[in-house]
Structure formats: structure tokens, C-alpha cells
């Protein structure tokens, strides 16, 4: 079940779903120059990451993903952001992504669940 706020100039999706046994609140917003994705299982925004496509002339795009707030020792979070920015890029958008993950576990199943859920409800 999801709701789409349409008349407000920033499209935004807000939904609640189960990912790997944990209730997850998912928020996806599309600003003019950024995408914002929030996935929360712990009642806070958790760790915030920034992912962007690098400007370059190489055939294959490169991406820069960094933790800007929170856990810096959890590679699965970075991997999650990396997968999402790559999907954004391959969908034709060069907007960077701000991703906030407040998760109860950092297992691969949870990460895959988050990535697939976000892609399923994406705004790009």
C-alpha cells in the first residue's frame, strides 16, 4: 500500500513493507537535483549516504559513494547505495542520490530486499 503526493511539486512516495522479517518504512522523494530514499526499521533515519555519478568521458560511468552521517564501517550500506545509483544512472538520470538507512540488520538479504523494493517503487 502506498500513497503518492501529487499536487505538491516534489513527488513523494511513502510506504510500509516487510523486508526480511522487519517492518520497513520506505520514503522516496524526487527533488529537482536529487533523489532522496529513506528506509527505516529502527525509527530514525540512521546512516545517511550520498551517491553520485562522476563526470567523465569513459565509456562506463563511475560512481562516488560515501557515508556522510553515521556508520562508516558497514560495507553493505555502501553497496546498497552503489546499486541504487547505478540503477538511477542506467535509467537515464544523472541526479545524485541521498540515501538514509536505519536498519536492524545489515545482512545481504536485507540489502537485496531494500534495493529491489526501492527499484520497484522508484520515481526515476
Amino acid at each position, binding site marked *: *500500500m*502506498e*500513497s*503518492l*503526493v501529487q*499536487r*505538491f*511539486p*516534489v513527488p*513523494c*512516495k*511513502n*510506504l*510500509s513493507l516487510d523486508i526480511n522479517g522487519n*517492518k520497513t*518504512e*520506505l*520514503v522516496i*522523494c524526487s*527533488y*529537482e*537535483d*536529487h533523489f*532522496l530514499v*529513506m528506509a*527505516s526499521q529502527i*525509527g*530514525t*533515519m540512521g546512516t*545517511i549516504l*550520498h551517491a553520485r555519478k562522476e563526470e567523465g568521458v569513459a565509456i562506463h560511468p563511475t560512481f562516488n559513494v560515501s557515508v*556522510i*552521517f553515521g556508520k562508516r564501517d558497514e560495507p553493505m550500506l555502501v553497496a546498497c547505495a552503489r546499486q541504487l545509483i547505478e540503477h538511477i544512472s542506467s535509467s537515464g538520470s544523472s541526479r545524485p542520490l*541521498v540515501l*538514509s538507512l536505519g536498519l536492524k540488520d545489515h545482512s545481504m538479504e536485507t540489502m537485496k530486499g531494500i534495493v529491489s523494493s526501492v527499484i520497484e517503487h522508484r520515481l526515476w
Partner: protein
Amino acid sequence: MAGKESEYDGVLDSDLVSVYSLKLQDQTTHLSTTANGAAGGLEITCFSELVDDATFHFQIICFPKQIYAWIGCNSTKFGDLYAAASTRPSNTVGVTSILGGSSDNTGSGIARRLVLKTGLNIVLACSIPKNSPMLEANAEKKLMEKLISLGYKQPR
């Protein structure tokens, strides 16, 4: 829930804001209806306000002990991101820029005062142009009004 305010905030709250509040009430126009996305577990409040020829867009996402807010000024750019929280054991507020806005701190003052007034951790994205104290003050006033109506601060 509200934290203790410093002298500076007392000035901002009383004299300066009261001078402008009458003017703002005359010119405030609600551009669009407030939209609440509540199908998910999180409550998202989105609204727009026209104040003194500037269009502000606001988004507020309420967590149990944290608030995410976005302020757009005449655009839907994400802007600079700030995080603010109260420090322990002293009752001061720490605020930091976490994305953009390294030398100008247009949103950091708003973030800091939101923590003081709500007592919660704040993550604020703000695209108000720098060197615009009136825009800042107007935006902060509207945001605080909405937070009060959502029950985050007891009005004096």
C-alpha cells in the same frame, strides 16, 4: 520536549518576529492544500506557502525521536543538508553541515533552533539562498508553525 532557549533565541522569538508577524499574516497565501502521505507508517507533511513574494515548499517527516525537514525556496532543489542534535550533559546544540553549504550556513541556524524548540534530533535540507535573513526567518516561522500544529511544541 522543548529545550531551554538562549538569549538570542528569545530576541528572535519576541521582538523581531512580532514586528514582522502582522505583515506576514496579510501576505501569506496558502498555495496548495497540505498533503499528508500516511499510507506508510511515517507521517509526511508537505505544504507550500507564499510569503513576501517568495514561495516556500516544506516537507516534514516525523520519526519518534527525529525530524527530517526540507525547505525549498522558489525551487525544488534539495539544497544543503544539516544535522543537529542536543549535546549531553550540557543543554547546548551541536549542528554540522553534512552535504554542501561549507562556508555559508543558511540552514544551520534554523536546524539549531529547531532542536532547541523541539528537543529532537533534526536533519534539515535547505535551499534558501545565502545572505537572505528575511527569507530564513520567514521559512523558519512557517516551519515552526506547522510543527506546533503537529504537536511538537507547546505554544507559549
